[in-house]
């Protein structure tokens, strides 16, 4: 019995000895970070630190910091790093060697899980403006992670969505903005500003108007043969078109078949009954006699903005003068005959200075056209000069009777390149009944070397039209264009 008791005591002592010599060390490895939460803004420096706590005697401890699959071997208990966006698991593997042992024991820390990411998004939309009331705004997260998003339209309350877009419907014209951020991350939202523009430029047309719109028969009534119509747009126009139509009792026929593609840099048009310059994108064009005096027209202007929106407007206008298009008093030149030069005889070119409607215009008892006093006396003096090319020689000048029942006197002065034609009308009884519209016939001679050559002819700007009081008679149109004219060539008889 005593022996059994002894054996039991010995066994207990042995157990105590063995357990005291071979018990495993007690170690606690605690990992922490300064992140503060499990969502960390990309770009933030995170400091991981850990504690190796034990009552045992370790002669050496090293660490392996596991950041997902990346392992960093460290001697220290702290590590700072800046992580790219992503989901992370981090723990520390501590390797400790007890003083009494030669091998390392492994002790794992607690595991930290967190996400490194961003509140920011990148908008897919690149347009600054839309010609539609419905706009889809889409985006991508800058961190490439999956998020829930918060968006706000035009400053309204933020709305939560898992989608990467928002469809905006029925937006009004104007400037709008969408703000988006990821829900998980605290930060400023990204903002996409855009304009909705579904209407073309508003157009205002300005023009000459003697009564500032006070008359009822046309928006612009300048009481003259000219109207300068200019336009302004409410926004920049990248394309401008114009079109003209007439107003008649039968309807409104178009003068220009289609819209004309107007040069957007030219903001006006000088309208008249003679020559209208069209500044089109394809070039500058001359439109003679496109409009007539006394007729009412509509000028349309259409403008496109950079989004393709367009709008048009029109004004009516009326060109008029103290005469109509039919009885307009004019002075111009007209070629009458031309004969080539031969070896025996000089060539001949006869030019007429023609003045249709001039007598009638001056003689007419003027009704008041516009509120002006435009009455003139009778025609007393008419002087025009005819400019002509070198190579031509004045050979004869003939002045037909021009004013009936008056003494018609006339003469000329020839300068070799300009002939001044002088006509006077005196109140002396004269048996002149048959009169025409020609002020003068001027015959030029030229040599054979001029056959087929182009010569230039035109009325000069020094002209004088005076009434009986020696006062300028206003309103007669003198054509001062210089015209090119081909002299005739001798045509051989075909055998």
């Amino acid at each position, binding site marked *: 019995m005593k022996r059994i008791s002894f054996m039991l005591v010995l066994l207990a002592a042995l157990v105590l000895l063995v357990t005291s010599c071979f018990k495993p060390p007690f170690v606690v490895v605690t990992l922490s970070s300064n992140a503060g939460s499990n969502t960390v803004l990309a770009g933030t420096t995170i400091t991981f630190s850990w504690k190796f706590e034990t009552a045992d005697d370790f002669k050496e401890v090293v660490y392996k910091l596991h950041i997902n699959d990346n392992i960093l071997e460290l001697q220290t208990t702290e590590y700072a790093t800046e992580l790219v966006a992503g989901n992370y698991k981090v723990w520390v593997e501590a390797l400790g060697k007890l003083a009494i042992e030669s091998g390392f024991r492994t002790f794992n820390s607690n595991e930290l899980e967190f996400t490194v990411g961003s509140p920011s998004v990148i908008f897919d939309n690149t347009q600054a403006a839309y010609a539609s009331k419905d706009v889809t705004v889409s985006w991508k997260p800058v961190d490439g992670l999956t998020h829930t998003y918060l968006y706000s339209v035009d400053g309204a309350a933020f709305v939560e969505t898992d989608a990467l877009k928002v469809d905006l419907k029925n937006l009004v014209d104007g400037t709008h903005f969408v703000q988006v951020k990821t829900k998980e991350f605290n930060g400023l939202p990204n903002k996409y500003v855009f304009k909705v523009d579904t209407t073309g430029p508003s157009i205002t047309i300005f023009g000459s108007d003697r009564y500032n719109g006070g008359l009822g028969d046309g928006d612009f009534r300048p009481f003259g043969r000219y109207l300068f119509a200019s336009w302004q747009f409410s926004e920049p126009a990248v394309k401008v078109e114009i079109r003209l139509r007439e107003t008649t009792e039968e309807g409104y026929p178009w003068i220009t078949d289609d819209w004309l593609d107007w040069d957007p840099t030219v903001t006006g048009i000088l309208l008249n009954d003679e020559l209208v310059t069209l500044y089109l994108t394809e070039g500058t064009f001359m439109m003679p006699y496109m409009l007539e005096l006394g007729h009412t027209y509509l000028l349309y202007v259409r403008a496109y903005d950079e989004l393709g929106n367009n709008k048009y407007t029109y004004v009516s206008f009326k060109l008029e003068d103290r005469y109509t298009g039919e009885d307009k008093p004019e002075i111009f030149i007209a070629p009458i005959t031309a004969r080539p030069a031969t070896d025996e005889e000089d060539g001949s070119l006869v030019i007429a200075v023609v003045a249709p409607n001039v007598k009638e215009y001056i003689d007419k008892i003027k009704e008041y056209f516009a509120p002006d006093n435009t009455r003139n006396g009778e025609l007393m003096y008419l002087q025009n000069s005819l400019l002509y090319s070198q190579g031509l020689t004045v050979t004869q000048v003939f002045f037909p009777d021009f004013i009936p029942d008056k003494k018609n006197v006339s003469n000329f*002065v020839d300068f070799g390149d300009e002939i001044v034609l002088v006509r006077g009308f005196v109140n002396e009884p004269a048996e002149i009944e048959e009169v025409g519209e020609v002020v003068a016939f001027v015959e030029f001679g030229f040599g054979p070397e001029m056959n087929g050559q182009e010569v230039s002819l035109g009325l000069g700007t020094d002209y004088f039209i005076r009434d009986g009081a020696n006062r300028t008679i206003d309103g007669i149109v003198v054509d001062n264009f210089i015209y090119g004219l081909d002299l005739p060539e001798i045509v051989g008889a075909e055998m």
Partner: protein
Amino acid sequence: MKKTLLVIIITLVSIATFGNELLQEAASRAAEVNESIARLNLPWRAGVPGALSEFAAHGILDLDSIIEKWHGEVELPERMKMDLTKSLFVEQATTRYSQLISALFIYFPYGDVQIPEGSFVQVHTPITNQAFHGTCWAFATVASFESGLLVQKDGFAGEEIYEPWKLQHDTYDLSEQFASFHNIDWDIYIESIYDPLQSDVIIQDDSSDAGGNAIFSTYNSVRYGLPLESDFPYSMFDFNPWILWNPVNNNWEENIIKSTKTVQVYYGDELSWLGYPYEIYNGAIKEAMIKFGSLAVSFRVPADFDYYTEGVYIPTSTTITGGHAVTLVGWLDMAGLKAAFPDLIDPEATSITVNDPFSGLTWEATEFWIIKNSWGDWGWNGYYVVPAVSKQLYEFSANNGFGISPWMIEYNAMYVPIFEEAYAMEDVDFNGDGVVDEKDFDILVEHMYTGSIVYDISIPKDYWVDHEDISRFLLIWNSIID
């Protein structure tokens, strides 16, 4: 009734209060000008224009808006080269500007009048007030027209005095409203310059209150004439951006007076560049004034000009605030200047030194233009005095291409109307056969474009035979027959 009275009182008090602010603003600016005048030792004084009270009474309290209206003369986009240098426009679609200049007569001195050596004032009509419209050009034109009638039709003559108001005559009072109504359409005018198919400038009427230029209004004096002021009264404060058509007499056209043509004294600086002597240019101005009447002139307006009250105006700075058309009614020599402004001019002075801030030149002035303004109670009893270009400065301009500055009236052309019916008929029986007939006509045409005293029958005379002489011959021939 009480309520109405209250409204009236409140309105009057408001105008008085704010009107006072207008005058205070003007006084403040005038004080600044006076400081500059004192610093530069200039012979003139600035002050508050009396006419401003009238603006304030009409509720116009913005000084700058008044100044904008005052300076309503529009400078031509480019100076027109006329007969003198031949037209620049050789390819023209229609006849517009050419027709206008066909009524102009560029004047050079003829030597048929004695030019006073001292001061001189031509007869003219009383000071007017363009008020709240940019119509100075029309007022200058009408003032010259009225003076022309006094001189050419009625035979009044100027005198060698220094106080211009002593030669005011109220015989004629013609309508500035009518003249203003016939402004030029500036849009068409300017566009026609640049339109390749309209290379002659288009002259078309417009009634906008947009400033103007006497070259056009003098032409209108030929083709439309001018009615009486009583038939077309001037509307001073209607606040419209255009000029009203407001005849108050249905028979207004019966009282129309037309000029025949317009004498133009050409741009002084250009004449100097072209080599015309100073005596020719200065003589042209003085002769034209003596023979035909006061001249419509114009200049660019320095900012301090509005506050002029007396003395010889010389700008204190180079800030230009617009253009202005006025009427040249006479000149002062040094004696006249001292008599006119004894408090400002040193009695021992033999000249006035002009330090021109525009050109940077310093020159001595011994003659001074007396100019009638159209701002009512303003300046030197409605007038102002400015240095006339001296021979020294004119010749400097001729040699250097600058010197005559925009604030001088010599910078622009000058205009005065001609009333040809006021002149005696010349003897045009050139061949002495006792009759005027086509033989005399042919003789005259044979001498066309030559210098001649015998065949120079134009009004005015110019020693030159041209269209003016031929047409004058026909007028005389017709008068003999009639």
